[in-house]
């Protein structure tokens, strides 16, 4: 299909694609713009002047509950979920390269983890903790609940990575006298590092934005999405949009930093 003249079909599809991108980003940009609403402005256009009023409002504790605390909890939880997801998915990915008893069952449990409705996980973990007599909290029960969502993504990505990974590199390293650990550390790991960073990004952002799985499992202290959800029902000022802007900008920074990391690794590998 390459090296052909652009046809009518191309322009039609290009227009469709542009509409799709507008559909994805349009509403979000409305929120970004409206978060700079003047102090007397409302939830819809037009802008009543421009100000940072609602951002200032966001950091006043009483106005919107505990924004700082919930952000800190979500951030730490995201980092915890990210590290465990990367580590456990990598190990599982290595395990799936060989046949072992129960591998098919484990694979389908991981797939099930992806398709079981999140509210069922939330309810199950909540009730289980209650019956055992543990107190649910964001760093125990919600942590586990988030892992049931991020791990299957991580495992499936690693599965796909190792499906395409030629064993020839490891055989070559072995022939040159590398120990298994050296082979892994100096041959396998650098090759799969970009995918691992991708898994980490998934782990962090999926946890950072997770709502349904935190609902019954977060315990006394809210995570950020729970806080935002609470605001949708009782906050009717643009402070909601200010919060939306802050969290979205934060997510974008995380994504950019990750992509930067992947590009950097690629460059370094190309040089070395």
């Amino acid at each position, binding site marked *: 299909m390459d090296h052909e003249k652009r046809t009518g079909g191309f322009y039609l599809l290009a227009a469709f694609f542009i509409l799709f991108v507008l559909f994805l980003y349009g509403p979000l940009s409305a929120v970004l713009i409206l978060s700079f609403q003047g102090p007397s402005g409302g939830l819809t256009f037009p802008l009543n002047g421009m100000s940072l009023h609602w951002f200032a409002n966001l950091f006043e504790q009483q106005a919107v509950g505990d924004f700082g605390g919930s952000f800190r909890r979500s951030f730490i939880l995201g980092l915890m979920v990210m590290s465990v997801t990367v580590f456990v998915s990598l190990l599982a990915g290595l395990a799936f390269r060989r046949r072992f008893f129960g591998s098919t069952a484990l694979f389908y449990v991981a797939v099930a983890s992806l398709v079981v409705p999140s509210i069922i996980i939330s309810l199950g973990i909540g*009730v289980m903790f209650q019956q055992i007599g543990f107190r649910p909290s964001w760093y125990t029960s919600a942590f586990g609940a988030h892992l049931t969502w991020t791990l299957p993504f991580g495992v499936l990505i690693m599965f796909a990575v190792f499906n395409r990974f030629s064993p020839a590199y490891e055989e070559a390293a072995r022939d040159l006298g590398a120990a298994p650990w050296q082979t892994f550390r100096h041959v396998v790991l650098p090759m799969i590092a970009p995918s691992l960073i991708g898994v980490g990004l998934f782990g962090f952002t999926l946890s950072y934005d997770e709502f349904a799985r935190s609902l019954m499992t977060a315990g006394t202290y809210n995570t950020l999405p729970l806080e935002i*959800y609470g605001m949708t029902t009782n906050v009717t000022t643009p402070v909601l949009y200010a919060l939306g802007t802050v969290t979205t900008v934060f997510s974008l920074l995380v994504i950019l930093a990750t992509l930067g990391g992947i590009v950097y690794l690629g460059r370094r590998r190309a040089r070395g």
Partner: protein
Amino acid sequence: MSATAEHSIAEPTPGMKRRVSLARLAPYLQAAPLTLILGAFLVAPILMIVVVSFWDYDFARLYPDFVTYNYTETLGSWVTWKTYLNTLKFSAIVWALTLCIGFWVAYFLAFHIRTTAMQIVLFLVCTVPFLTSNIIRMISWIPVLGRNGLINAALVESGLVPAPLEWLLYSEFAVVLAMVHLYTLFMVVPIFNTLMRIDRSLIEAARDAGANGWQILWNVIIPLAKPGMAIGTIFVVTLVMADFITVQVMSGGQSASVALIMKNQMSLLQYPAAAANAVVLLVLVLLLVAGILRVVDIRKEL
């Protein structure tokens, strides 16, 4: 693969023997953390739900028991059936829309964008919103669809409608729109993945054999894209079946879903009733997924 090759080469010296048995043990050790976490936070909670769905309860606590009225109550009610139908209806509509949109977006990226760099950039443009908060993306429709929102303002201004349309926000239309907005990515990514793996020479061959564009699309590309469509379908259908927050926020309380019933029962501490609903919903979702898995072998597609 590599391990079996190693075994066949390895001479059974004592030291080797230890390494071979360690190599045999290695996958179990490597799979152990995943098994433990999924066992503790997926399998055990689901078993707990099945058990609790047979328990008795009052406003204060749960009583271990074996009663079936959590099921008879929920399945005997007309409201439940209507809600299940409503949830299935949302799934079907959102599935059809995301499949159509997702396929054409993926097709454009895979076949019409010529350089890999551009493909990556456009793919990222599509993926980034997926990594931001769902709730914020939902809320972002308010200034667009609201009574005084952008669309209504434009429509009234241009004289197309005399008064703002009320059904744009807080309606089933808004629910479907928000779900398509949230979930189309889950279709684009797997379909794009399968399209990229289609051997381009097949298309050349079809063209040489005299097929026109539509015939190539219908007889070559779409059949080969089916696994990606199936995986996207699994994502979209299970996400919509499990959804309560989009339905709650975007319908303004005028519509219901099974998960929303569960959520309301949970906030009233009626856990056994919610558990019974959870079991029914889970069986339904797993049956749907099993049906789709008959079309596609996920392990081969990754």
